[in-house]
């Protein structure tokens, strides 16, 4: 079950996703992300350090958020905290361009 909490006081304003970033809650998560973008003017940070499980449907939401933020002129950043390695593995396996992880970490050529 996904939980989100938005903090407008943080700098930048931050939406924290807790527990799941996955298909089961994709609709709710999408709405929470749109709502968070509606409340910011310049920047939004998505904090994924509290995510315990995620899947492709959940990760698609991050790309969609990047796209929406760009259209609104909002700078969107994603922080993974201790989950960074897990997300890196995911990006490597799926061959998708990692979001906010430097390119040198990417190596999708499974030899």
């Amino acid at each position, binding site marked *: 079950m996904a939980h989100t909490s938005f903090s407008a006081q943080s700098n930048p304003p931050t939406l924290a996703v807790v527990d*799941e970033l*996955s*298909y*089961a809650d*994709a*609709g709710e*998560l*999408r709405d929470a*992300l*749109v709502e968070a*973008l509606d409340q910011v003017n310049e920047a939004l940070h998505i904090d994924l350090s509290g995510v*315990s*499980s*995620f*899947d*492709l*449907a959940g990760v*698609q*939401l991050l*790309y*969609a*958020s990047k*796209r*929406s933020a760009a*259209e609104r002129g909002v700078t969107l950043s994603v922080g993974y905290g201790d989950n960074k*390695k*897990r997300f*890196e*593995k*995911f990006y*490597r*396996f*799926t*061959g*998708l*361009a990692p979001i906010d992880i430097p390119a040198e970490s990417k*190596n*999708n*050529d*499974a*030899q």
Partner: protein
Amino acid sequence: MHSDPLETFREEARELLGTLESALMELEQDPSDTNSIDSAFRSLHTIKGSGNMFELDQLVSFAHAVEAVFADVRDGKAPMSTTLIELGLQAKDHIAALLEPGGAEGGIDEELLEEGRRIENELSKLAAGSGDGGRGATEGAAGTGQTEASGARSGGGAESREEEPSDEERTYRITFTPSSDIFRTGGNPLLILQELGELGNTLVMGFSDRIPPLEEMDGEACYVAWDIVLTSSAGENAVRDVFIFVEGTSEVNVELLDEGSVLDTDISYKRLGEILVERGDIDPADLEQAMASRDYLGETLVQRGYVTPERVESALQEQQYVRRIREQRQVSETGSSIKVGTEKLDALVNLVGEFVSMHAHLSHQAEAKGDRDFVAVGEQMEALVRDLRDLSIDMHMVPVDILFSGFRRLVRDLSQDLDKDVALRIEGAETELDKNVIDALKDPLLHIIRNSVDHGLESAQEREAARKPAQGTIELSAYHSGANVVIQVTDDGKGIDAEKVRAKAVERGIIEADRELDEERMLELIFAPGFSTTGEATNVSGRGVGMDVVKQNIEKLGGTVRIESRPGEGTTIRLRIPLTLAIVEGLLAELAGGYYLINIAYIVECIDMQAQERDGEQRFINFRGEVLPYFDLRSFFGFPPADVERSQLVVVSNDEHKIGLLVDNIHDNYQTVIKSLSTVFERVDGVSGAITLGDGTPALMIDVDRLARVNAEEVRG
């Protein structure tokens, strides 16, 4: 190559152990590095397989046990951990010990066997602790049944894949666009990627460009698409079978990119535009328009909005992947390299050297006799001899990486022993140097690095107090400089206080108390015999060997060693080593009836010198507007003054100092092999080697570097 196959196996196994150690050191930095996990596994697997042929049962059984743990890590069944890396290093040392004659064969050394059992025991505890939970840790995904895929290659079992005949491998391009409903129908595209990975090597390129903004997005739809390049011995039908449950709903296209023997195919692969058109990423008309531009095609296509950057990037990746596959296949099919023992290479280089000397003599004789035909043949031969010389030297060259990579382990172990946090940075590891020089450099560098970690770098507390990063750094670098290679060891430690060095040298009776020295010369006192004593050495750097031995060893190679240090900032020790020991090209100079060779790498120019200039009190001349000090070599070597009207001044430079060397006469360029000096000449200052000319006449090699330094010291007073 050794005629004894067992000895050949040992040599190869030692190389593989080096690869294993490098992989483990990489994993220490990045435990998720799948290439290093694969490399460690492959090294162990090959050692085991080859050891089996020689019935080295102890070694085979031990390597098998270690390999099994790494196979689990590679397959995602067990995690990589610092404990496993440590055990891997211990296992590497143990295999090295088993490899030694009597180690694995006799099985007599009970202590050695016990060590093996201990490591195996530790490894099995580690395997038991990890259970089977590591593989593809399930990541929620309620409703979709999706899993977070392991970054490591999963499933399939490498052993069965490795046993498949690689000559039947084909490379496919698979375009996979899942139905947007795939999640809703319980499908999981990632499982398909995983299944493809089990068929062989894959290059997976995911595309996010169809994902819309949040506002237009259906959170439960799938927007991601993939291009996968797969190299596998599986047939096309087997590849298509992977998609059997999504056929009809998803778009799947399987296309054969590469097959058959590369001997009848070109290494080069399709151009970027061709790949993009084939994949349907771009319209051919747009490509044609973009081709008219002189800019880079990929950039132009993206700038004009014909294609997204990730499509261009993936096409480039496909291009590189197929080229690499073809190159690898060509190497394996044509067998482009063979192993030759270094002793045979040494013999070849020596023979080439002798041949070079004979040719030089022949040319001299031809010119002396004025025989035009003979001279012409000599000139034609010269080009061949030069090529032969360059080739034989080139065959002897190896990258310094084989020397440098061994120091990673040294620094790691030392920093643990001394409880210091030390990073080793390596630069220029691809620089090539004569294999014999590299062998001879190992001990001096080992000593220098030990000293840097032990005495140069401070403890973490001292560093923090000095407002430095807690982690100390040692940089080991190599680069070419003329006919030399420079190897530098730099630390960012506490540096050396030159005055303290001076005081210690006075205390040890190395210099007089009232001797005036500048800072450079004070620091150089650490290379003086008797400066380091075993009395104050630690377990780490104290082996009864001082920096004087380091200097002697470097000078034996015809090299030099310099030191620079700033208190509080660190120390640099710079070794300048000739590229090769075997053959040098020099100018043959005559002096008091004897012959001397001056290495051509040092020579700037030769100028005539009249007796009136030569015989003055001053040992300086005006050389193109600069004051050039020179040595009268007759006087330096204790010969009487010349009674000829004209002499020759050879202007030489060792990159630091430029001087002139006054000789009686100069002959021709001369290529030769340097022989070790007999003990008679070892104490002659200014001479670094002996040679035999083609007609058997002996000659001495001038030690230009030494003379330049002596001169600099005299100038400094």
